[in-house]
């Protein structure tokens, strides 16, 4: 492909040479087709902007599903060297802090749920409140919410929303240590207080899916997955709480950037050294929001189990619904990686990108340590979703990171012009996908046409060595925000 912006390294790697204020070059993972979309999306401009972050090492990267965002592109990855003045930027994590995906496995097959499926979908729709500004059934006092911020999914387990076993297969055991529950503003607390246990709106969803293809039988078995199995995928984040934490931090970072004399091409990239009072403030607040998101997905997990057990009259043992994994795709983490042959402490920003650690890594839950970390890649509505597994190559090249999903290719306005919600619902239902939604318009905005082809994104991740395919799921029921 003739492009002035990108220099081809190989079939899946394209470099954006260093120029202007870029401290490192850019690197885009894509095949030619996806690169075309990425180029039209002006991702190169945002990748180049991110390359100006103080302390950035190696490359400013974009994953195959990258598209235009604000500050970082969605699908952007960058690491800064903590001990060399490396910066942390709220714009590199986004407003929906720790937005992520959780996958629940079961011992059921589609035939087991078919007779009561419509009732099950109604029950799930009530179990996972969705829509604009939706509130859950939990009403937390401020003191209790602050505990959520400290403990994450562990708080939910202590309150009876699940079992200790759930924590074993959640990223960081469900709790990010280092969160400071006192830092987030009262306004953040107010925005988040009644939203625990809700999906929200936009691209968030809860899907009932069936595993329809297994690529690595052994790995799938370790993850508890088999062909024909019913699974549930939950995609949501830290709700209004996280949005407010990010908004508050952006204000503080505008001042900090000026104080540290940073020259950044985009104010949304405003940042401060990780090792500074502003950096530590944001870091500990962001972790608090991440704990909110984990607690949120845990409460939803419990509600999902209850809905299944009640509707299908099953015992927990008969249902066999366990957490396969829970992974965030909007997060900044302090991790140790090798840079130029030396171990360095890095602040890895992943904005619309998923961690994908290989077998043997100490940060992988013990049950999966021999095979690698599960990577959960949701498709767009009505299309397949995938489970992949982290690789050694990803760890070396991208700090152990891969794509996060299909990635938008059409604005919501454009989607609304092309698709009607009612028609889309009929189309999905004619393909055997039940739909429950708070808004038909919201449904249309999330139409599959508005997204890139997730299978193509997965193929590029697999072929580039950023993750390996393990299993594919097709949706049979969608609860949509």
């Amino acid at each position, binding site marked *: 492909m003739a492009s002035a912006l990108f220099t081809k390294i190989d079939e899946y790697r394209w470099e954006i040479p260093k120029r202007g204020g870029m401290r490192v070059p850019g690197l885009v993972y894509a095949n030619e087709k996806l690169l075309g979309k990425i180029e039209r*999306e002006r991702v190169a401009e945002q990748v180049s902007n991110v390359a100006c972050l103080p302390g950035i090492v190696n490359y400013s990267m974009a994953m195959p599903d990258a*598209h*235009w*965002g*604000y*500050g970082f592109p*969605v699908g952007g990855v960058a690491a800064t060297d903590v001990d060399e003045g490396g910066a942390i930027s709220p*714009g590199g994590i*986004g*407003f*929906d802090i720790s937005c992520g995906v959780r996958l629940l496995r079961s011992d059921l097959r589609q035939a087991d749920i078919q007779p009561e499926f419509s009732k099950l979908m109604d029950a799930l729709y009530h179990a996972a409140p969705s829509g*604009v*500004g939706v509130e859950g059934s939990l009403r937390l006092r401020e003191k209790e919410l602050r505990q959520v911020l400290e403990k994450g999914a562990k708080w939910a387990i202590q309150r009876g929303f699940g079992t200790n076993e759930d924590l074993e297969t959640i990223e960081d055991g469900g709790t990010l240590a280092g969160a400071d529950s006192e830092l987030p503003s009262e*306004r953040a607390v*107010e*925005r988040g207080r009644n939203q625990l246990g809700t999906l*929200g*709106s*936009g691209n968030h969803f809860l899907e009932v899916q069936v595993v329809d293809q297994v690529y690595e039988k052994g790995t799938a078995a370790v993850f508890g997955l088999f062909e024909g199995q019913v699974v549930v995928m939950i995609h949501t984040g830290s709700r*209004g709480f996280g*949005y*407010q934490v*990010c*908004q508050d931090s*952006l*204000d503080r970072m*505008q*001042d900090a950037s000026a104080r540290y004399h940073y020259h950044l091409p*985009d*104010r*949304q990239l*405003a940042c401060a050294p990780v090792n500074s009072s502003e950096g530590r403030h944001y870091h500990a607040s962001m972790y608090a929001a991440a704990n909110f998101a984990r607690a949120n997905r845990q409460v939803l997990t419990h509600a999902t189990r209850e809905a299944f057990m009640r509707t299908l009259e099953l015992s927990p043992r008969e249902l066999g619904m366990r957490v396969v994994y829970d992974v965030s795709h909007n997060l900044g983490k302090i991790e140790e990686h090798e840079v130029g042959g030396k171990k360095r402490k890095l602040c890895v920003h992943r904005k619309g990108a998923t961690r994908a650690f290989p077998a043997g890594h100490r940060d992988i839950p013990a049950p999966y340590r021999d095979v690698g970390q599960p990577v959960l890649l949701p498709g767009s509505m009505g299309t397949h979703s995938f489970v992949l597994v982290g690789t050694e190559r990803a760890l070396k090249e991208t700090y152990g990171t891969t794509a996060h999903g299909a990635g*938008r*290719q*059409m*604005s*919501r*306005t*454009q989607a609304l012009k092309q698709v009607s919600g009612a028609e889309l619902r009929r189309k999905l239902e004619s393909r055997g996908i039940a739909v429950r939604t708070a*808004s038909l*318009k*919201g449904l249309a905005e999330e139409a599959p046409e508005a997204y890139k082809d997730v299978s193509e994104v997965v193929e590029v991740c697999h072929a580039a060595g950023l993750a390996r395919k393990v299993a594919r799921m097709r949706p049979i029921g969608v609860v949509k925000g």
Partner: protein
Amino acid sequence: LKPFEIVPHTSEVALELRGRDLRALFQNAAMGLLALFEQEGRVRPRETISVRVRSSTAESLLVHWLSELVYIVQTKRWLYAKVEFTRIQENALTATLHGEPMADGQTISREVKAVTFHKLAITRDRDALRGYVILDV
């Protein structure tokens, strides 16, 4: 010239604003935000809320102003019909919102997560001001 226009963005949405001065520009921003929320149902100016916002520049003042309105509408669930500025300058504003708490028949059908600083701008175009702000929806 339109007071505001909603401009689509792949994953977010932008407001393009025009106004003869800062007061008109910020007024149009408030009305543009209501359009973005896809607010439906008549809002009566039955109550008031006072808003004070400070910042270092006119651009960041616009971000703070819109964030404040996002908070009032989404978290307080309170809708405004009219905005009056008692004072507005580049680094601070005081305004009174006239409206009422959201009730049956009044809805918003789009969530606005936050207001970004990406490509944020206020520029002078001949005898009017133009503003550009991207919101995360």
